[in-house]
């Protein structure tokens, strides 16, 4: 029985692996060897690099925010733990740079006021239609969960930002459409958004295209998953705890089961009985049964 069980177990493990592979191969169907870079937030202990997130916010604000909204982020998120961790004063100052429509006031009028921490990020356009119309018929997607909404995630966004090239010979491009190596179909309506030095980093980091791409991608990953660090921390603790618990439970289970086992016949007798059964069929000749 035990032998059969092991074979079964092996087969099951193999089949599960095959199926997981087929699932993941499907998930990464579009994966076309994205550019690789080291992400600090990947892995079991992954955390964000604060400075990189702060720079990423700057790139977002100065370059992307003209067209792309991040409507699910609030200004308060900028100062919260696990994010760029701007000080509360800095975050307040950032929020105050924006005009937010509020109201109606006691006269029934809508009015504009400076942004507060509790406000959502101000959108560049009032609605999807306005945004589409202003961008040549292509809607610049909201970037709140962009890192989760694209196969390849961070690697894809990073590669896309660095993937602008001259279109190959004979590749037809319409007016206002650009060639990008990593865009599915290779046609993109966004012109290359980054070029060296387009942003002057407050912390003095050299603003190369690669650096800015990396920073803004990290920012977008955080925007999509603001509790990522808490998630990793809790996951690590939970799994360690479960392993300890599993060990204890398994030991108790063995102990409990041994109570039952002790009532059974000793090893010797089992052997004798087995031999008797086989002898019944093989006759008295003991040579065949060793």
């Amino acid at each position, binding site marked *: *029985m*035990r*032998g*059969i*069980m092991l074979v*079964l177990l092996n*087969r*099951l493990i193999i*089949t599960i692996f*095959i*199926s997981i592979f*087929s*699932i*993941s191969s*499907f*998930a990464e169907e579009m994966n076309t060897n994205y550019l690789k870079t080291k992400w600090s937030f990947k892995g*079991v202990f992954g955390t964000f690099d604060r400075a990189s997130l702060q720079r990423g916010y700057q790139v977002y604000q100065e370059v992307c925010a003209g067209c792309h909204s991040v409507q*699910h982020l609030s200004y308060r*998120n900028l100062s919260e733990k696990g994010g760029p961790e701007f000080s509360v004063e800095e975050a307040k100052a950032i929020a105050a740079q924006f005009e937010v429509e509020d109201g109606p006031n006691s006269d029934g009028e809508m009015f504009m006021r400076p942004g507060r921490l509790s406000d959502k990020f101000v959108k560049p356009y009032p609605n999807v239609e306005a945004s589409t119309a202003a961008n040549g018929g292509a809607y610049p*997607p909201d970037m*709140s*969960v962009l890192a*989760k*909404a*694209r*196969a390849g*995630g961070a690697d894809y966004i990073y590669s896309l930002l660095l993937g602008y090239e001259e279109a190959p010979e004979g590749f037809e491009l319409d007016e206002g459409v650009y060639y990008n190596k990593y865009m*599915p179909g290779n046609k993109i309506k966004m012109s290359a958004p980054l070029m060296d030095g387009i942003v002057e980093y407050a912390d003095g980091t050299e603003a190369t295209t690669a650096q800015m791409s990396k920073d803004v991608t990290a920012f977008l990953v955080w925007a*999509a998953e*603001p*509790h990522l660090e*808490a*998630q*990793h921390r*809790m*996951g690590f603790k*939970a*799994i360690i705890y*479960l*392993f300890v*618990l*599993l060990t204890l*439970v*398994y030991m*108790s*289970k063995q102990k*409990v*089961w041994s109570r*039952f086992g002790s*009532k*059974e016949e000793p090893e010797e007798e*089992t*052997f004798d*009985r*087995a031999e008797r*059964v*086989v002898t019944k*069929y*093989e006759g008295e000749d003991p040579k065949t*049964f060793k």
Partner: protein
Amino acid sequence: MSEKYIPKSKFAQWFDSRLPLLSLSHHLKEYPTPKNLNYWWTFGGILTFCLITQIVTGVILGMHYVAHTDHAFESIEHIMRDVNYGWLMRYVHANGASMFFLAVYIHIFRGLFYGSYKAPREVIWIIGVIIYLLMMATAFMGYVLPWGQMSFWGATVITNLFSAIPLVGESITTWLWGGYSVDNPTLTRFYALHYLLPFLIFGLIILHIWALHVPGNNNPTGIDVKKNTNETMPFHPYMVMKDITALLVFIIIFFWFVFFAPNALGHPDNYIEANPLVTPTHIVPEWYLLPFYAILRAIPSKLGGVIFMFAAIFVLVLLPWLDTSKVRSSVFRPIYRKFFWVLVGTVILLGYLGAKPPEGIYLVLSRIATAYYFIHFLVLLPLLGRYEKTDPLPISISDPVLNKPGFVDKFKKAAAQYEGDNVGSFK
């Protein structure tokens, strides 16, 4: 178990004679289980855990979710960002669905392997198939609630299937939608049903367990055990401890997904808000529905596809009568055992094909796999029951031949030699 249980204290006796809750808990505690149950038998308990987890996290999510096409997507982001541990609840719920199906597939294939659907356990099996069907409906409707692109288009594709029904199809689809397309009325009714069905599943699980407790558990040898002998052990603490051990291993895998790969099993497109004007390049359901999706698309006609898809599940209801072999466990069915693994491979292949576009080699393969799936149940099983030469069965589950590796083979050889072709039983 065998003698009637009488509570100790007078009050308990008074209460128990009016509502026998104490007798019930005594029964559950003492319920005799075969001592040779292996870890594949722990998935019943694991599935109960999955359902309870889904209900608890689901109720909490329901407090924050807004079932409206304008707010559903946003409310999910609200849960993920602003609700305390909302991200945890949602990731446990979303991955919990996948783990639920992983466990249920193992549970079903365990039943297939060890012949647990055979007399006298047909009713348990059929209730199980109904639970599985309800689970698929619940999971499908749950996937619609975030109102992402896959939610919307998945709902559109699946509800459109009903339009294939002759004459009344269009009306049924309109009735399901509550309008002329998937829209707010569809979302709100899916939400209501998604909340309701788990409780129906819960009720059916009680029936499933009740029906199980009449004949008792099957076991890896498929031989009936003698109850209340040293062949069985009380459910508590023996099986409880074993179930908890297996459950913890399961939770570790579950949590690995929740904390370190929470979106690995979902589709990225579902993080794009539903847009009726933009169709995704590939509309694919969640992984656990893919085998049926492959069958649906393998059939050239729409109505035919729908019929075959539902038949693929319904054929399981007939299984206890399609498999005519008297021997339950495939441990003693050398030929069925091989076909069993071919079936497992076929279902996984169908799952893989369900994720691929229905064209070229994928379409050819999914037609072959679909045909094989039905042949397995409708042709192979009845034939095997008649012609398969099964291995000799041990006398009981404590037959010593079962404990020593290699003995079984010797035993079979010896038996074949002395009993010729009539080998059926060693009694």
